[in-house]
């Protein structure tokens, strides 16, 4: 049964047409709305590559029933930075060598942004705990932790002014 509903994604109301109501938000973002930044791997909530924000909370889009999200604010990686422009988090990932194959990067950038919104000056343990829902097979995590710590330091030095 094909259905019709709308979702607010990255501040824009988007119609989802010809969808099955049982589809996950991950599927709808990628396959219905053409937003390919959010990655899917396990579809079991284990890898975090599908991380998005729903009403400001970091969640796994693969575990969210899209058709029940009307009226909520959904932010995907495309909503964090316009194409061609890097956020301070993205730049710090590149600088620290925290982007290798890049598959985990969108999810980790979402997690890092979400962490730094809540904790301005996270400890090493806080960074590791907050990123613990995101799996990366390439970097060994050290560079990721370093990148997030570098963003926090820079933001503090700039007096809270976001790059």
């Amino acid at each position, binding site marked *: *049964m094909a*259905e019709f509903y709308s979702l607010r994604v990255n501040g824009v109301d988007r119609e989802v047409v010809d969808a*099955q*109501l*049982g589809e*996950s938000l991950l599927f709808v973002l990628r396959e219905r709305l053409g937003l390919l930044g959010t990655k899917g791997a396990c*579809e*079991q*909530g*284990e890898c*975090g590559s599908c*991380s998005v924000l729903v009403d400001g*909370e*970091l*969640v*796994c889009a*693969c*575990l*969210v*029933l899209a*058709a*029940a999200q*009307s009226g909520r604010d959904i932010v995907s990686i495309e909503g964090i930075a316009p194409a061609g422009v890097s956020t301070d988090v993205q730049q710090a990932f590149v600088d620290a060598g925290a982007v290798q194959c890049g598959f985990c990067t969108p999810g980790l950038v979402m*997690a890092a942004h*979400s962490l730094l919104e809540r904790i301005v000056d996270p400890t090493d343990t806080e960074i590791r*705990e*907050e990123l*613990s*829902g*995101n799996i990366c097979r390439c970097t060994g995590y050290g560079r990721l932790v370093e990148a997030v710590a570098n963003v926090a330091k820079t933001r503090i030095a700039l007096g809270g002014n976001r790059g």
Partner: protein
Amino acid sequence: MTVSVPTSVAEAVSLLAAAPDSLVLAGGTDLMVEVNAGHRSLDRVIAVDRIEELRDWSISADRRSLTIGSGVPYSLVMDGPIAELVPALAQASRTVGSPQIRHVGTIGGNLGTCSPAGDTLPVLAALDAQIHLRSVSGGRTVSFSHFMTGVKRNSRQPDELITGVTLPVLPGWQGYSKVGVRNAMVIATASSCLAVDESTRSVRVALGSVGPVIIRCTDAEDWVVGQIDWERRAVDDGVVAEFGQRCGVAARPIDDHRSTAAYRRRAIEVLSARQLRRAFPNG
């Protein structure tokens, strides 16, 4: 397929009454995993995550008990006021999955699934939590021991909504410990909750992942109260060791893909002995 998004308990229970085969969807962290794996198909879904009454919690006027809505996510239990009132529940919540899972996963969902590895369940068992259920014909309350009936089985009727749990606020040490292969994102291979009630001088212990249901170690509980020096908050090393062994005897573990029965029993011995020592630090 239909997806309903009620905003009140009354609305949700009438939707359930009209179609008791509906699936209640809270955080989706158990249900959507099954859907994605192709183990379950969705037909009628009632999404309960916008029912504010379920996402609330309150403390009784005498401050002796706490009622937590079924829709309260782990991230809210982990720290803040609930964590001060029931530290063991906060510790258990903190071990669940990852930040992404804890933002949406709920206590009601842990109860709905009723896996022996559900991390909040040993805490609810140790504290003799009361589970509140509601249908169009009214509400009822059952103790946790009557709620969980087997592996992923509970006494909830198809037309009932789990609305919340009531827990006592106990004076005394309490904690939750879990063994698994790593720190994050791990299903318990064995877990234990120990809670002391200094007002009645009692000790409660409940074990997870070592039986078809959560196991209360009543023999160890009854035995140990007489061995404790309550004034000095002290127990002998020998008592600590025997307490661990008695809890291990209560466990009914099995061999499976996650671990062996022998390892699980040993883990229980170690966890419960450690918890007793933490509760009564003096030798």
